[in-house]
């Protein structure tokens, strides 16, 4: 099942002949203490089936009761996305059979989402602004987790049996659905990635979720269809799941565009189907064919009463909205006096929040920017992870910056300290101690080393005394070598010039 067996059209040709249309569905796992409809803990990683009760296990006779904070989070997400909040809405049952769903229906919302009709404004890398319409945001519950046993690589195909853990069943989910995204042309994959990134940042700012794509608290399904240039109606779309990183969002969209174009160009038709993204190949493969598309037989959930958020409650929630990412970008640009280009670098590196937090922890904006946008971005790239996922925190970075400001570290030593923190050696101060990286600031020791070096290079010493300041460089080098690089080169130079004057 490699993509080499699938025809793909050349990307430029795709754009000559077709207009891509995107629809992105993002599921957000909320970070509430308890599940959506019962008081079981949502803590990740517990022993299987130890965070369950009659309700989330779907035992006969059990009933759901709605988590107030789940509703508040849903409303806040809707408000942050500029949505209307429904004055009255209900839950609905989405009926289908699957072993990870204890009731064999999911309690969700159908034609009455709690939030609808909003938008999210994105800024792409080169400053182009794209407005993505938000169709709706609604509340639903997560399923249990299955382990497939006996097949290859734990996948469902070829498994002999499966093992079910329902700890996750009932955890609150908010599903955010975009309106069809059109007019993006060749930038469609980029726009898709930018949207998920922007949404993630917004959710993080709201504090409603851990939004870790690698942990499943943020999940994206990408719907892609192609419109031939002369068409008046949308084409048939496919839905691609298992998209587990921002990079995968971009790759999946691009792949689907080229794959669908090849099918259409060969005279074929696109099946409305679910596809799965393959990290290894960057391609998508078809899910199991179904005879008919699923009819979920939605009807209003009789065990839950309607939600009618009072206007003053909604307004109070509006006042709890934190500074939204685009508001923060504007403010940061002004406060830190950044040029548009500098701001863009920050945004592209995904670093604004990290930099801001580092500044909050005591670093100067310049220091914070330098660390995140330069050194740490490179590190993230080489590891193939997001900046936010690096094992170093803004507080730690601020500490390193403070040590440099105090003169306890040179920039070079500081980089070693940061490496140590990334390697899991502990807090910056621990790394300094363990690796013995403290700047040699003992002037007596420095002077001694300087004198030694001067004595070893008498001709250079002569030159310096004669006014050739540049010659000091060789002595600095010798002293740095002698102190294993742990001297402050600037200070050493100053001392040399003092001694030779």
């Amino acid at each position, binding site marked *: 099942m490699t993509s080499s067996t699938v025809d793909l059209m050349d990307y430029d040709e795709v754009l000559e002949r077709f207009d891509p249309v995107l629809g992105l569905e993002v599921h957000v796992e909320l970070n509430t*203490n308890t599940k959506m409809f019962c*008081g079981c803990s949502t803590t990740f990683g517990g022993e*299987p089936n130890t965070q369950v009760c009659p309700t989330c296990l779907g035992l006969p006779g059990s009933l759901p009761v709605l988590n*107030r904070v789940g509703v508040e989070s849903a409303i806040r997400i809707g408000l942050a996305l500029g949505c209307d909040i429904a004055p009255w809405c209900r839950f609905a049952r989405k009926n289908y059979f699957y072993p990870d769903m204890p009731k064999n229906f999911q309690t969700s919302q159908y034609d009455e989402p709690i939030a609808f009709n909003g938008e999210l404004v994105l800024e792409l890398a080169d400053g182009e602004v794209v407005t993505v319409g938000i169709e709706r945001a609604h509340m639903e519950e997560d399923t249990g987790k299955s382990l497939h046993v006996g097949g290859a690589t734990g996948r469902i195909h070829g498994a002999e049996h499966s093992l079910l853990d329902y700890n996750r069943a009932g955890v609150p989910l908010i599903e955010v659905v975009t309106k069809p995204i059109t007019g993006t042309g060749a930038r469609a994959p980029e726009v898709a990635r930018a949207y998920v990134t922007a949404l993630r940042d917004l959710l993080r700012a709201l504090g409603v979720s851990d939004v870790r794509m690698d942990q499943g608290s943020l999940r994206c399904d990408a719907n892609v269809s192609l419109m031939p240039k002369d068409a008046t109606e949308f084409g048939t779309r496919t839905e691609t799941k298992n998209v587990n990183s921002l990079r995968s969002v971009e790759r999946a969209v691009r792949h689907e565009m080229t794959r669908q174009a090849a099918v259409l160009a060969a005279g074929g038709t696109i099946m409305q189907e679910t596809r799965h993204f393959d990290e290894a190949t960057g391609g998508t493969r078809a899910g199991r064919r179904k005879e008919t598309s699923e009819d979920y037989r939605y009807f209003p959930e009789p065990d*839950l009463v309607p939600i*009618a958020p009072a206007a003053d409650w909604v307004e109070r929630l509006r006042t709890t909205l934190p500074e939204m990412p685009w508001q923060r970008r504007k403010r940061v640009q002004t406060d830190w006096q950044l040029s548009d280009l500098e701001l863009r670098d920050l945004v592209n590196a995904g670093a604004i929040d990290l930099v801001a937090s580092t500044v909050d922890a005591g670093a100067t904006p310049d220091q914070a920017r330098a660390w995140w946008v330069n050194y740490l971005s490179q590190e993230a790239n080489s590891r193939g992870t997001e900046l936010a996922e690096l094992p170093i925190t803004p507080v730690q970075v601020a500490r390193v910056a403070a040590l440099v400001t105090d003169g306890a570290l040179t920039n070079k030593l500081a980089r070693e300290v940061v490496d140590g923190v990334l390697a899991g050696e502990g807090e910056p101060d621990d790394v300094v101690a363990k690796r013995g990286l403290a700047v040699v600031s003992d002037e007596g020791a420095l002077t001694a080393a300087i004198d030694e070096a001067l004595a070893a290079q008498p001709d250079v010493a002569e030159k310096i005394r004669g006014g050739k300041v540049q010659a000091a460089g060789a002595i600095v080098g010798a002293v740095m070598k002698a102190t294993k690089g742990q001297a402050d080169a600037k200070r050493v130079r100053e001392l040399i010039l003092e001694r030779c004057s």
Partner: protein
Amino acid sequence: MPNISRDEVAHLARLSRLAVTEDELDMFAGQLDVILQSVAKVSEVAADDIPPTSHAVPLTNVFREDVERPGLTQQQALAGAPAAEEGRFRVPRILGEQA
């Protein structure tokens, strides 16, 4: 007037994951037809402007606080399980992927 065929009954049985025998199919087809004819009577009512009732009592906004409540132990959860393994419910191999 609905006239539900044997095939439609078989389809409904499939949708609801109900194994039915050939004899049952015939019996159910006849019975379901009669039942559907009698319930189709609801269409006689002119109800274009009538709002539907989903909840008999006019309650709204019933919530609980986001506070933990003791649940079941793993043993209690698995007590009725037809099969269990390593603290999990063991189920036969699943053919389809999640919808």
